[in-house]
């Protein structure tokens, strides 16, 4: 039985358990709150706070998530109290001397991290903001200052924005939890980068994923379980196309959940996996839900809920839910909700789920009714054009409203929708729009490239700029000059010698004949004709030399104009 309590204005939940005490402190802050230019700030604070209370012997940790950040510990009562009080004290006075080191630690952590395979879907669904921000690396870290950290703590790590949970005999004595005062921070509404759904976009080989956003209800979780069972049957047991076919569901905001289905395959079978997955989703949508599957899945979930460990394990989710405005739901209530779910309820969820679906797959899903998600921008900005240098291909346009890059497709980032500009000392710039559009502006690839970068720098607000460390010379893009391969260079040199000789010989002849023409007295007509022909051949040779030199430098591509 879960009961509520309060410590120093912070609401808490307690559930009686045996064994050592588990307790945690959660805040309503996560990736969802981070502008891309400050991406990583919450994680950095979590690390700094834990550094101060670091005791290697105990089982404690922190976790920064999409919507919440938490600190938790398992141990004897006095150590738990010391830990939680310590975290609060550390949040009030972060060890700023650790800033540079902890940024390094976070870089290392990101390097070793196994990203969820469905992560790109957040980006495609929401863009480079709120619920899409978590799909991006912690790109804000280099620019985060001590003042940024203090402001972030003052806004999010406050009494009013915190919750506590305890799995143990009683609320431990001695909790001070001295946090600054502030206000509860509501979750931002999820943005959408998809003009219409169901939608699809291209993913990596050997993986097909689908996700959807539906209202939270007991039927939703049963739907996710039934879907997993059907996918497993279809894709693994019957067709042998997949090894893993799984679903997952997690809350989004107060009232919604995200359901994700993922199936792996050999790269050459991903079209069939997509076909099988779509067929299963369509069957559920059409109402072909086997009541036996529904009963079995409810039974499994209820058995899990009745397990006492599960109650303690679910406590943090319940507590954090309070911060999002969700009511606490006791085990019996949850069980009653689940057992009332019928096959028709599951089919109703499936219909909703289909309509909001997003597919990530190496093969297209448009034949199955999924609109291909936009891969380019709608409009180009007006402004100064910076054409590609020989050997480069894209046209860069910089205007007062934003920038466009025109290549095979059109990309535009408007300055008022720009969420981040990464800036390298060599002049390279990466601009990211709120919808997830990415433009690389490289001074080395455009005529008057430096001027273009200067215009961009003048237009992008300083708080969106993150200064990056210098790139290695080989990381700085160059026109195809360096792209000419050995055979191009050899052919280019041969061509230059051949055409060079040709030019000299015919040029010489032309000059001699011209002299003869000017000084001679005999029949001057044919002399002039031959001289002209020789001059023409020499000009042709000169053109050949130019082409050969181009080939030597840039490879066999024709000159772009």
């Amino acid at each position: 039985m879960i009961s509520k309590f309060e410590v120093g204005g912070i609401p808490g939940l307690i559930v009686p358990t045996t064994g050592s005490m588990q307790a945690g402190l959660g805040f309503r802050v996560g990736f969802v709150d981070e502008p891309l230019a400050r991406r990583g700030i919450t994680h950095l604070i979590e690390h700094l706070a834990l550094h101060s209370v670091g005791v290697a012997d105990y089982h404690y940790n922190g976790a920064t998530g999409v919507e919440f950040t938490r600190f938790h510990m398992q141990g004897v009562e006095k150590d738990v109290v010391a830990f939680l009080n310590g975290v609060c004290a550390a949040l009030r006075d972060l060890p700023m001397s650790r800033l540079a080191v902890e940024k390094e630690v976070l870089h290392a952590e990101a390097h070793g991290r196994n990203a969820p395979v469905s992560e790109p879907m957040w980006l495609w669904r929401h863009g480079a903001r709120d619920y899409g921000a978590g799909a991006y690396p912690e790109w804000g870290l280099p620019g985060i200052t001590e003042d940024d950290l203090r402001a972030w703590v003052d806004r999010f790590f406050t009494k009013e924005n915190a919750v506590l949970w305890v799995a143990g005999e009683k609320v431990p004595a001695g909790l001070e939890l001295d946090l600054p005062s502030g206000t509860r921070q509501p979750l931002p509404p999820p943005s959408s980068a998809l003009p219409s759904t169901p939608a699809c976009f291209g993913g990596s080989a050997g993986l097909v994923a689908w996700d959807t956003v539906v209202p939270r209800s007991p039927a939703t979780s049963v739907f996710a379980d039934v879907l997993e069972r059907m996918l497993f049957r279809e894709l693994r047991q019957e067709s042998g196309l997949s090894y893993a076919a799984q679903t997952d569901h997690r809350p989004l905001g107060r009232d919604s959940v995200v359901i994700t289905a993922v199936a792996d395959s050999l790269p050459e079978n991903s079209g069939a996996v997509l076909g099988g997955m779509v067929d299963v989703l369509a069957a559920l949508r059409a109402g072909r839900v086997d009541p036996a599957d529904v009963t079995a899945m409810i039974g499994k979930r209820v058995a899990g809920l009745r397990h006492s460990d599960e109650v303690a394990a679910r406590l943090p989710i319940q507590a954090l839910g309070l911060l999002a405005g969700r009511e606490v739901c006791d085990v019996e209530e949850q069980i009653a909700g689940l057992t009332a779910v019928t096959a028709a309820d599951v089919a109703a969820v499936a219909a909703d789920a289909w309509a909001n679906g997003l597919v990530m797959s190496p093969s297209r899903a448009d034949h199955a009714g999924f609109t291909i998600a936009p891969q380019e921008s709608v409009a180009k900005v007006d402004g100064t054009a910076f054409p590609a240098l020989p050997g480069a291909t894209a046209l860069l346009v910089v205007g007062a409203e934003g920038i466009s890059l025109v290549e095979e497709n059109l990309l535009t980032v408007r300055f008022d929708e720009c969420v981040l500009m990464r800036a390298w000392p060599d002049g390279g710039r990466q601009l990211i729009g709120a919808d997830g559009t990415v433009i690389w502006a490289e001074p080395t690839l455009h005529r008057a490239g430096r001027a273009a970068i200067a215009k961009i720098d003048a237009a992008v607000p300083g708080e969106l700029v993150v200064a990056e460390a210098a790139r290695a010379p080989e990381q700085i893009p160059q026109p195809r000059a360096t792209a000419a391969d050995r055979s191009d260079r050899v052919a280019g040199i041969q061509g230059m010698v051949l055409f060079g000789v040709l030019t000299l010989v015919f040029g010489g002849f032309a000059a001699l004949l011209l002299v003869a023409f000017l000084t001679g007295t005999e029949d001057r007509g044919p002399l002039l004709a031959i001289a002209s022909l020789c001059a023409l051949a020499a000009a042709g040779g000169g053109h050949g030399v130019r082409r050969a030199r181009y080939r030597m430098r840039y490879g066999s591509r024709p000159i772009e104009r």
Partner: protein
Amino acid sequence: MSDTVLLDAGFAYPEVKVVLAAMRGRDWAAVRAVLDAAGPVGRSTLIRAASEEYGQEEFLRHVLAEDPDDTAAAAMLGMHLIDIGWRIRSDARAQHVSGGQFEAFHDWLRRAEMVLLEGVARGPADPALWVARLTSARGLELGLDETRRRYRKLAAIDPHHLPGQNAYLQRLCPKWSGDWPMLHAWCRAEMLAAPPGAVQAVLVVDGHIEHWAELGESANLGYLRSKPVRDEIDEAAQRSVRHPDFGRDYGWVQVASSFAMIYSVLGDRAAAGAMFDMLGDLGTEVPWCYVGDGNAAQQIRAYRQRARRRGRVVG
């Protein structure tokens, strides 16, 4: 001796005429009565034949709206939409089809796919839906893995479903990104998997006809005459048209017609004559449209006469 050539399926299978008449009368109950009484292959054949009539979309959508679980209507509508698309694409090879044609073709196929997806969701065990899905998968170039998945779904319902096998055979041709060794191996395996006397032997013959047509007709009789190919053709004949169990099930006209064509081209007038005898006035557009000027009726007439002039044919 008749000069008549009857290419319409209605002459071979009288139910086709009944279904077509019921469709023209917009009498779906009558259509269903015939379809429901037919076996799976007959049903797919009838649905296919009815779907080729012009102007059915509105009527079939209406039927489906009344009863979304009517998979016969879904299959027929799917087939019909595929047919509209294919007429826009034309039967020309891909390099002779314009971009706009391809766009419209794919657009109709996607509409068909949506109907068939919903149909399969409601009635996954209807083979006619899977036959249509095999055809649309080919037109949309969905990839061999997905097409194979669809074929396996069909085979799980009916392992010897000739209309679906015809569609899958096309997908295995190089012109649709398949390859010959895979195609011939599959055709022979399907023949051997079916009981002796069954129509599946035609897959072996049709596979060789496709191969021969791809090589270019006149220069390559050598291909059909080569011993391994000739042996396979004869083996297929022994297992079907020359087998005592070969009956008059749906598909038999296609089988006899393919053998008549291949033996005609090979110049084996006796064997061809026996097939023409079996067929009487009946014939099929495919594969005779691959011969000569592509006018199937004329080619059949000519080769039939040639076979009969030898006087080897009783009749």
